[in-house]
């Protein structure tokens, strides 16, 4: 009798844990996925002091990535789609963050390799996110699109949530702007921080 009551009690407790876990998990995942990273500082023109040489005959897309950010793989998948849909009118640069005091090679992750596999994209290692700061970006996945005159036309992320590849407003906007179907857009960016408040203050 006692054993039976113990089993029933344990099952009721397990049922409550089960229900609470499902609720808490949905809540935690939703919060994590829908909370964007820090948006870019407002810059309207191509930063003159950047060491990237902009091609004046083409659109220029710059994406900032943290090589260890798992969500960034989704951004790269979307970038692949954008490059494919934009054709040769788009020049792409992927800036890969690496802390200056870390050994070279730290950045060579699966995400880095995925970036290297992108067609028609130049990969540039960005020590301490110096270039990222020039462009005004703080978050991995942050994408900037500049027109032929060097004016900023898109700023934001190209995924709908953290780590979610698939059709979304951000990547569609970039393609639409390149094909002259839209003028200027912004979108939230989802990913790990590249330039933190602390590192910004140190500069």
């Amino acid at each position, binding site marked *: 009798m006692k054993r039976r009551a113990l089993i029933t009690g344990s099952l009721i407790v397990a049922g409550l844990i089960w229900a609470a876990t499902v609720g808490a998990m949905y809540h935690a995942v939703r919060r994590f996925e829908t909370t964007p990273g820090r948006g870019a500082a407002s810059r309207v023109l191509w930063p003159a002091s950047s060491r990237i040489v902009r091609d004046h005959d083409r659109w220029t897309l710059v994406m900032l990535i943290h090589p260890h950010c798992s969500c960034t793989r989704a951004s790269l998948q979307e970038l692949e789609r954008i490059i494919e849909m934009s054709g040769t009118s788009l020049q792409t640069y992927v800036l890969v963050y690496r802390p200056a005091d870390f050994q070279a090679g730290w950045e060579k992750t699966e995400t880095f390799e995925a970036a290297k596999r992108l067609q028609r994209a130049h990969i540039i290692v960005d020590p301490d996110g110096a270039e990222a700061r020039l462009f005004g970006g703080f978050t991995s996945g942050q994408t900037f699109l500049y027109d032929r005159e060097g004016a900023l036309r898109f700023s934001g992320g190209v995924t709908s949530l953290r780590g*979610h590849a698939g059709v979304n407003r951000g990547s569609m906007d970039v393609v639409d702007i390149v094909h002259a179907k839209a003028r200027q857009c912004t979108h939230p960016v989802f990913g790990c*921080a590249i330039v933190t408040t602390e590192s910004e203050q140190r500069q």
Partner: protein
Amino acid sequence: MSEIVTERESEMDARAAAIRDEQLHARRVRVDRMFTWLFLVQYVAGIIAALTVSPYAWEGKVHTVHLHVWIAVIGGAGIIILPILLSIFRPGTTLTRHVIAASQMLASALLIHLTGGRIETHFHVFGSLAFLAFYLDWTALITATVVVAADHFLRGIFWPESVYGVANPEWWRFLEHAGWVAFEDVFLIWACVMGRREIAASAARQAQVEHLSELEQLKSAALEMAMAEMQVAS
């Protein structure tokens, strides 16, 4: 005479039903055990996936354990605790089957999330439905389908980008996703019904054999008794 035949037939039917229920119960207990092991394997796989795909969250050069790892460890355990306890202490019951069906779909959702929404991981849902069909209880498939549909419906309302990539999908879009599950369900439900019929037919045959064997034994006993009486008389 006809009353005796009817009585024997109803006895045989009752025996066939008892054999069928016994066989179904034994089968369902075995499937419950299979799911216990499956839940444990999935739990470990979920943790490995989280540690492989997203071990850390980064803030510049500083890293902390990624939320996905905690979700795999704590959330994964929370999902499987009830079905495992039920399969140990209440094996073969209807409640156990339905909790297992719901939990298996939640495990699918968790694995899909931990692998970054990979389309390949969505096959886990369809594989799981096939495993649930081993119970030969189509109602468990309905529970699983309702969980999938509810997950898509609620996320479609509160968090649409996670399912459809866009913020304002049509309200009926969850039906399209759940529709593929329902498509598989049709064939699995048919397989469940056929499987149960086969078990019932086999149970009826066994009851008939048992009945005939019983009659034979009675005849043999009567014959032996008659022989013994003849011997005594001679």
